């Protein structure tokens, strides 16, 4: 079933196709997993209830009152960012091809330092609820807010569909539940968290998930290393031996088999041409610094210092997690790839290509640990979709409703009501799209989300923060041009044109649009701003020096309003 591809939707490149041809068969119902999952849901619903009692104002809803510490926020950011797809997908990629999985990991991490060095503190100093607060700080509100809200909705929608389809497949796989029921459950739980608990509940769901995922992955990596005398060299040597033996069993000559075995120590087919490589890297790196649900988390901490600390913690945890994933993937080659009980008749993984880490959990800790890891994988999806939905709801209620339609005169209660209505609508939409896209190949959607964020949000934020010449028209129209370029080129790229729609040879030959669309965004903003002779442009430019001082010092920054 092609739809299995959705599970690793976070891993955008077509190189993944080979890793994903396994079927998403339904597994026998795993009661340990269900019991652990029920315990997780019970705990998070209780947290939601406690959080709901403290969610009275728009500030509570959007930013948990701004009273989250840097350490907590760092964990929550990691929880927002480490998806089940990166856990299962990257370990599966390593199980199949070895080294290539590491390339994804580095790409997903290197955006975080850039986010810190150029944006984190300034974002916190200027913003209140959404990144649009910052992007539109000195500009005419309606055009720039509208751009930011539309961009947020686009980025979040693509990301969300990919997560929902992946969630349905994963739950079917792990718990033996029907796809539709799984999608409705994810949508329903996510709505409960966001609707009643707002940012406070979402943050704690993300923190708990991050702790569970990091704990579970640490245990797996530790057990793998223990079997290899805590030597990576031994682990790699055994993995190469396993792959060599497998090639020999397939009838390869001794020399060919040795070469195939060694191939897991080197980059393989992941990167075909240098342009795609750089382009894909740019999308991951700069897209991270433009994801609305990540940017929104900066407003949950009291000041710029805590914002800075959040990124350090997030980078540390995410980097650590990717190193664990690397060990887990190689551990799966050694422990899962050699055990016939995890393989079907043809030597493929039972249950589908993404089951490597799940089978490894069973090989290490039996049914109980398998149940734990399955429940963690589900918790992981819930945390990610809750964060996405909250950021989209904020874009609609705070940016469109309160600022554009009500000109900043909406009461906190009205704004809160619109947020909740939007959450309901988005939850329903996410479930619907999850059902519609069940059989579709949605692997391109996450890479599209990253490309859109890198080409629209990132240039607008950087230039509005750091270039005094940027004007309202430049930001709104230039950002839109960046978005459109990324969108159109992605539609014309092989992953969509050929793989998804089957239209033959793709007009745009590269796997990612970013190398063209990111410069397009920057140049369009620059050019339109330079040509902008409107009276508003003069106001925009005159507002820059004061904005810069506030961004650098935190004078007049919105403070925490915890009760």
């Amino acid at each position: 079933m092609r739809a299995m591809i959705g599970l690793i939707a976070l891993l955008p490149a077509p190189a993944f196709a080979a890793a994903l041809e396994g079927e998403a068969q339904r597994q026998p119902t795993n009661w340990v997993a269900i019991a652990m999952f029920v315990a997780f849901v019970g705990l998070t619903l209780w947290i939601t209830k406690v959080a709901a009692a403290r969610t009275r104002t728009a500030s509570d809803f959007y930013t948990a009152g701004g009273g989250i510490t840097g350490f907590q926020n760092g964990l929550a950011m990691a929880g927002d960012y480490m998806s089940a797809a990166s856990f299962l997908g990257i370990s599966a990629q390593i199980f199949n091809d070895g080294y290539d999985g590491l390339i994804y990991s580095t790409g997903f991490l290197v955006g975080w330092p850039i986010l810190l060095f150029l944006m984190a503190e300034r974002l916190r100093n200027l913003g209140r609820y959404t990144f649009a607060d910052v992007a539109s700080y000195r500009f005419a509100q309606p055009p720039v807010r509208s751009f930011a809200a539309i961009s947020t909705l686009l980025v979040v929608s693509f990301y969300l569909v990919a997560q929902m389809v992946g969630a349905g497949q994963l739950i079917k796989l792990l718990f033996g539940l029907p796809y539709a029921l799984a999608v409705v459950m994810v949508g329903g739980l996510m709505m409960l968290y966001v609707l009643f608990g707002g940012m406070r509940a979402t943050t704690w769901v993300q923190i708990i998930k991050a702790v569970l995922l990091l704990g579970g992955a640490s245990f797996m990596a530790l057990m793998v290393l223990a079997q290899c005398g805590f030597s990576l060299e031994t682990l790699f040597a055994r993995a190469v031996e396993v792959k060599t033996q497998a090639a020999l069993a397939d009838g390869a000559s001794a020399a060919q088999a040795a070469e195939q075995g060694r191939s897991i120590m080197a980059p393989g087919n992941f990167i075909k041409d240098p342009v795609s490589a750089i382009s894909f890297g740019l999308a991951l790196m700069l897209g991270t610094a433009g994801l609305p649900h990540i940017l929104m988390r900066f407003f949950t901490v009291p000041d710029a210092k805590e914002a800075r600390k959040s990124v350090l913690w997030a980078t540390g945890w995410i980097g650590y997690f990717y190193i664990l994933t690397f060990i887990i993937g190689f551990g799966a080659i050694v422990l899962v790839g050699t055990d016939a009980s995890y393989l079907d008749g043809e030597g493929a993984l039972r249950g589908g290509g993404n089951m490597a880490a799940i089978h490894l959990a069973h090989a290490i800790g039996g049914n109980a640990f398998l149940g734990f890891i399955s429940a963690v994988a589900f918790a992981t999806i819930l945390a990610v979709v809750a964060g996405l939905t909250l950021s989209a709801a904020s874009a609609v209620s705070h940016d469109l409703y309160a600022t554009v339609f009500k000109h900043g005169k909406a009461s906190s209660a009205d704004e809160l009501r619109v947020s909740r209505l939007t959450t309901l609508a988005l939850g329903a939409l996410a479930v619907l799209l999850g059902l519609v896209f069940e059989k579709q190949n949605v692997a391109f959607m996450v890479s599209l989300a990253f490309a859109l964020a890198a080409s629209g949000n990132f240039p607008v934020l950087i230039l509005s923060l750091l270039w005094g010449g940027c004007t309202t028209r430049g930001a709104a129209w230039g950002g839109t041009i960046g978005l459109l370029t990324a969108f159109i080129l992605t539609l014309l790229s092989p992953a969509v044109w050929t793989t998804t729609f089957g239209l033959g040879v793709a007009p745009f030959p590269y796997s990612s649009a970013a190398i063209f669309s990111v410069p397009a965004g920057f140049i369009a903003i620059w050019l339109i701003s330079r040509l902008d002779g409107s009276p508003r442009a003069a106001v925009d430019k005159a507002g820059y020096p004061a904005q810069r001082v506030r961004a650098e010092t935190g004078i007049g920054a919105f403070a925490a309003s915890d009760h």
Partner: protein
Amino acid sequence: MKQEQDAALVAAVAADPRYRALVARRARLGWWLSAVIFVAFVAYLLLIAFDKALLGAPIGDGVTSIGIPIGLGLILLAIALTGLYVAHANRHHDAQMAHILKDHRA
């Protein structure tokens, strides 16, 4: 009232040469560190694109390839640079900025 005070403070701080020097130093650090991680990552991608064999070459007599310390090193570099920036900002920037703001608020 608060807003007018803020506006006056902003104007005073903007004119302070110590503030300008601090912001310039901080921006320089941010751009330099961004350039380091950016160049390191792009260099890694180019190496993958043009010289897969080099990354796959074993270290010494072992199995572990050169690509592994390079890839894991890039992850550690990202964490280390982030830590460096935060440590520097906590130790120097915050205190200097607080000092400047205090002078103008008094």
